[in-house]
């Protein structure tokens, strides 16, 4: 039997990798994909605790998080398409239209 700490450590590793991706990469699509990775790590936590307590509520919350990730990906990719059409770039540090 695998203890819940194993699942928490796996989730922590994926979360940290996702945070590193968001903070260090320049490409916006990679940043969006890292956000998906972070949400996925949270899902592992929820399902592990749902298994630990024998309660199905954690899985329901994981479904809501997946819904949220789908909405976020759709809107984010729409914004990326609109931006790319105007500026011909995908680099996050060149997206400074709203910067002072």
């Amino acid at each position: 039997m695998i203890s819940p700490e194993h699942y928490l450590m796996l989730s922590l590793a994926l979360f940290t990798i996702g945070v590193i991706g968001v903070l260090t990469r320049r490409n916006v699509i990679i940043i969006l994909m890292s956000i998906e990775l972070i949400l996925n790590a949270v899902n592992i936590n929820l399902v592990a605790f749902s298994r630990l307590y024998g309660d199905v509520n954690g899985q329901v919350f994981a479904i809501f998080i997946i819904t949220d990730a789908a909405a976020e990906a759709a809107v984010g990719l729409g914004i990326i398409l609109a931006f790319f059409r105007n500026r011909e770039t995908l680099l996050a540090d060149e997206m400074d239209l709203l910067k002072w």
Partner: protein
Amino acid sequence: MFSQAVFYFFAALAVTSAILMVTRRNIIHGAVFLITTLLATAGIFLQLDAEFLFVVQIILYVGGIMVLFVFVIMLVNLDVSMRLVQFNHQRFVAGALALVLGAQVFLALKVGPGVMPHPAQQIMSPKNTEAVGDALFTHYMLPFEIASILLLVAMIGAVVMAKRRV
């Protein structure tokens, strides 16, 4: 013993392909590695007796969201972007801070008092999909409807954003 082997296989697969996803130069390779991570996570869900979530993860994440990502990558992929510097100026500080965050949570999990209670081994209902559906349509009725409105708003927003003339 078998379940431990399964867990370590899926965990190693997920972490390795996540690291590759963050570090690869080609975005398409990154997307493929993210798909591998999501599939490995689906395996973890199956091991945690969440069959419904296992199927939802594969159909919705891998089949829906990642196909969207790959479509957009094909629309906007530039050969120039492969030859640019892939990491930004504050990469060392940012990476160190992220590692510090990870180490902090790790320590909190390891040495924190009473962080992980160990209740007796619970038996999950064998009818996982039925249990999830029951909770979703009785106890979580209002959040479910709000989620559908959120999806509608996101759909309209994406169409408006991606339209040629706004």
